């Protein structure tokens, strides 16, 4: 009996998705309770319910494995944290598109887009009722610390720390050169931009998805540098304030190319069963 619990627990702790759910969940809680976000419960329920139902339906027709409900939960949390919308229909649309993209848009046995990101992009493009609020977290150094520490714990488990660090270093360095060294603003201006909660959440949670980042570490470093550089250019010179969402969508298209050029182990949520794809045609 005891060993059963033990086995279950070890398995649980081995799966970083539990940590992801815990952290994203606590940020949602924080936003709703302390940052005064619109607490429209039905909208959140709609996001979660439609994500789980979509996941179940696709699982039924494909793998018949229902453990990936965890992933649906993470996607729903991501959507709840980032997507703002006035109607439940839009929330459901985003959720259904997000999960469907995982099953329908696949290259090399990996889904191409970060599901939450895909859902947000779909909602913004297809409805006239969805938006993201880059300022919703405010900028607080304390928040930096917490999102950072939480994110770090999570991605150390996932092993995608390189993506976050590279992205933040590239983006931060470019921003520092432009705003502090060239334009001559005080370092506080830079700090204010860098401690934006949305940026941190994006760096630690959105772009560290092992399924939509390249498999090889060198490819990931290149991939996230590209993302950081492009985000800097778009936000600084073209004033696209929601550039991060669009860029992740665009850069995701490069992931299969990187995977083709630099072959490495495909990530498995449960690393005990990780297998090497030496031959891209080999199924896992």
């Amino acid at each position: 009996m005891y060993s059963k619990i033990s086995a279950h627990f070890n398995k649980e702790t081995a799966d970083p998705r539990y940590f992801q759910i815990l952290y994203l969940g606590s940020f949602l809680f924080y936003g709703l309770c302390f940052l005064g976000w619109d607490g429209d419960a039905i909208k959140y329920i709609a996001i979660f319910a439609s994500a789980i139902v979509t996941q179940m339906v696709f699982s039924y027709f494909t793998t018949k494995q229902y453990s990936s409900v965890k992933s649906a939960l993470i996607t729903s949390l991501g959507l709840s944290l980032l997507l703002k919308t006035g109607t439940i229909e839009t929330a459901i649309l985003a959720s259904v598109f997000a999960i469907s993209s995982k099953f329908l848009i696949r290259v090399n046995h990996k889904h191409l887009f970060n599901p939450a990101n895909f859902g947000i992009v779909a909602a913004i493009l297809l409805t006239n009722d969805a938006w993201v609020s880059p300022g919703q977290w405010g900028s607080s150094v304390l928040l930096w610390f917490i999102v950072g520490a939480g994110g770090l714990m999570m991605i150390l488990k996932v092993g995608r720390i390189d993506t976050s660090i590279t992205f933040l270093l590239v983006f931060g360095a470019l921003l520092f050169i432009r705003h502090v060294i060239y334009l001559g603003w005080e370092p506080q201006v830079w700090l204010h931009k860098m401690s934006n909660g949305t940026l941190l959440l994006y760096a630690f949670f959105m772009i560290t998805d092992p399924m939509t980042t390249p498999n090889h570490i060198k490819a990931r470093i290149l991939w996230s540098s590209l993302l950081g550089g492009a985000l800097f250019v778009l936000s600084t010179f073209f004033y696209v304030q929601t550039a991060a969402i669009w860029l992740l969508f665009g850069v995701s298209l490069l992931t299969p190319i990187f995977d083709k050029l630099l072959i490495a182990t495909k990530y498995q949520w449960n690393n005990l069963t990780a297998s090497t794809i030496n031959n891209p045609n080999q199924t896992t």
Partner: protein
Amino acid sequence: MKKVILTLMAIASVGQLAMAFCGFYVAKAGADLYNNKSEVILVRDGSNTTITMSNDFSGNVKDFAMVVPVPNVLDRSDIQIADRSIFQMLDAYSAPRLVEYYDYNPCGLPMPSMMDVSMEKESTTKMATYTALKDNFKYKVTIEAQYSVEEYDIVLLSAKDASGLKRWLVDNGYSIPAKAEHVLEPYIKSGLKFFVVKVDLNKYNPKANGGFLRPLQIKVKSDKFMLPIRLGMANSVGEQDMIVYAFSKRGRVECTNYRTVKMPTDNLVPTFIKPKFGTFYTDVFKNEYRKVGKNAVFLEYAWNVTPTFNGMKCDPCVGNPPYTREITMAGVPWANQNGVTTFFTRLHVRYTLDKFPEDLFFQETPNTEMYQARYVITNPATGDLSCAEGRVYQDKLRLRRRKELIELASLARWNTDSYYDYIAHGTDKVRSNKAKETDHNSKNINVPFWFFGKGSTPHKGLFLLVFGMLIVYSVKRLKLTLVKG
């Protein structure tokens, strides 16, 4: 008890619907609520932004000067003089409001539901000094354009470096704040031009427009939707208030680099608030400002004001809603077009240099949810209340008043200890002279200790978040140890 209040509210709301367009003022807290304030109208249309800056300069007009960083060199047609009254009109329409309801006498004839409205207001200050302008070669300053717009002399400058621009401004008689050079530099390097204004004393008529300078309305073209607040902070110590009236075709305008937070609304507060609503709201604002860590933008009003929109334009109206004429005056180019939505947002920001290191950036959102900062007082029933229902009513009334005092204490941080007569008698007599309404340091037994809900501060939240994570983490560790053991 709660149910009864809800019922009373529901009845009152019906009256309110009918009364929506005929609210009247009981108390008008005037334009002097905030000391250091400015008002701006922003109209966003694609990548065009029309900015109207209020002008409450009250010194000698020959000392008046204004320097505004703008993204491009403006044409003459991009500069207009606006009517001062548009600010008063928009302020009156969108100011936080106090609504008044009356309870029914359960023992006698019901009183008609009525409501009153009161409001609060604000205005602008911006300055520097001025004389004439001449050669500019040595300053590395280029005069890109020069216009005379009624009583204003306007110069559009581009500069190569901040010290040159500063010398040019000083030599031409503008007393630029000592620290301004530091702020001018990043603006110059970002390619911004400078819109420099002084008053042409020959054309200025001190008797016109109540002795005030008229607001300037400029149209700029840029993908950047922002307000440069940094220049205004170069020399200012302490807090400055700014009210932004924003018009958009889509929906609400929100800030993208600071949080946009709604003011608390629909709170039931004691009846004695009525004559001092201005002070009350100022204190509510001060309290909220403190709670958000002094670096957020507040939403005070959001409504669809499309002239052809048939719904209510406010609920209840503090002032007349803006129609085509006023919306056009505010600089909205599409006011006469049919089928185009005009959405209005009122934002209130109190900024200081340490908490607002960056200029304010905005975005239009498709959020068309209406919102207003509204506070409610409910007058008790009058007449004979000796019947059984009347006695029940009186018990409930006392409970309600207690709750209203708690609300007052937590919203505005007033010390409500000395208002205990209010619960039994509904009076606002303060029993002890020692007690001061706005004494923030005094112990206040009525402040409820809430951890959750709208009233909690983000810092408290962060603390809880860390604490919660620690607990979860410890529990996990503990369980693992148990399992291993």
